[in-house]
């Protein structure tokens, strides 16, 4: 026993995996801090795997597997699934969504602007006008590029 322990210590000097040494030490001296952790690890694995293993054994012993064409088919609320799921959407949808953002952002900023309009100085109105013009410019550019034409 002493020899084995000695061996473990010597090996540690030569860089053998520390966990291995701990496991060896654990069963020899019992002073190592690792044993509870190893025990918990084994327990946790068994806790997870044992029910799966039991269920598998049960199925092998009693319950025959019955796969079938209908049973394995894709679930579509009872309908047969037509075609392939890997289809492409037109890129135009995404462009439309992005252009919609122009109006979206516009509305978000215009509403507080309109509410506080009476008390605003001329500079604020000019700033808002510039903002609007920038957005409109973006829309015009998209329009010129022909993005809004659905083909």
């Amino acid at each position: 026993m002493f020899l084995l322990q000695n061996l473990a210590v010597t090996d540690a000097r030569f860089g053998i995996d520390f966990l291995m040494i701990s496991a060896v030490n654990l069963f020899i001296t019992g002073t190592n801090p690792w044993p509870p952790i190893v025990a918990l690890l084994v327990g946790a694995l068994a806790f997870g795997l044992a029910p799966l293993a039991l269920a598998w054994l049960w199925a092998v012993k009693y319950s025959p597997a019955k796969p079938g064409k209908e049973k394995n088919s894709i679930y579509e609320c009872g309908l047969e699934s037509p075609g392939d799921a890997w289809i492409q959407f037109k890129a135009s949808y995404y462009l439309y969504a992005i252009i919609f953002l122009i109006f979206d952002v516009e509305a978000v900023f215009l509403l507080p602007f309109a509410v506080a309009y009476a008390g605003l100085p001329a500079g604020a109105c000019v700033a808002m006008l510039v903002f609007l013009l920038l957005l409109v410019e973006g829309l015009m550019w998209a329009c010129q590029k022909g993005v809004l034409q659905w083909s």
Partner: protein
Amino acid sequence: MEQSEKSVQELKAELSKHGVFTTTFEEIYNWGRKNSVWPLTFGLACCAIEMIATTMARYDLARFGAEVFRASPRQADLIIVSGTVTKKMAPMVVRLYNQMPEPKYVISMGACAISGGPFRDGYNVLKGIDRYIPVDVHIPGCPPRPEALLDAFMTLQKKISEQQLTGEARPRHLKEDLPSEFTVPKYGEHGLEPPVNEEVWNPLKVLQ
């Protein structure tokens, strides 16, 4: 066989008197199954409203371990055919039943699901879902009250707890040669094709 079964029951009763609890694999298995019957989220007509009421606080289907209505047939044990099955809908019902894993059960809820109900003479209503899939419990009523559905649940639980694991009397899902999926009817020129699935439909014969 019956004699030994009887003596086993006597022995168990005798042991339980002395504070020793014994059980069998079969009993634990059935006990677990009957208390976790998960139905499919699947409503067809007005009966579905009663089915929903059954799951709510007043009737509380959760007492029977069956409140988890699954949104996918892959996780469901039970399909409650709750209402009128039109001929347009019948293939979907059968396909959903086919897609459920074994063991699977069927409750036919209400007059329509049993026989077509008030629409029996109509051209577009199926005259009972038991023409295509094996039904475990029928509930009469139009619509049946939640109590009736609870009663059907308890009947099903009783049925499950009596199922055997081995032997010739074991249920369909434990027999290798019996099918797990049933013929899905197709829309034909004069209603559904085939009109009934002969394997599952066993109507009472009128004897002359």
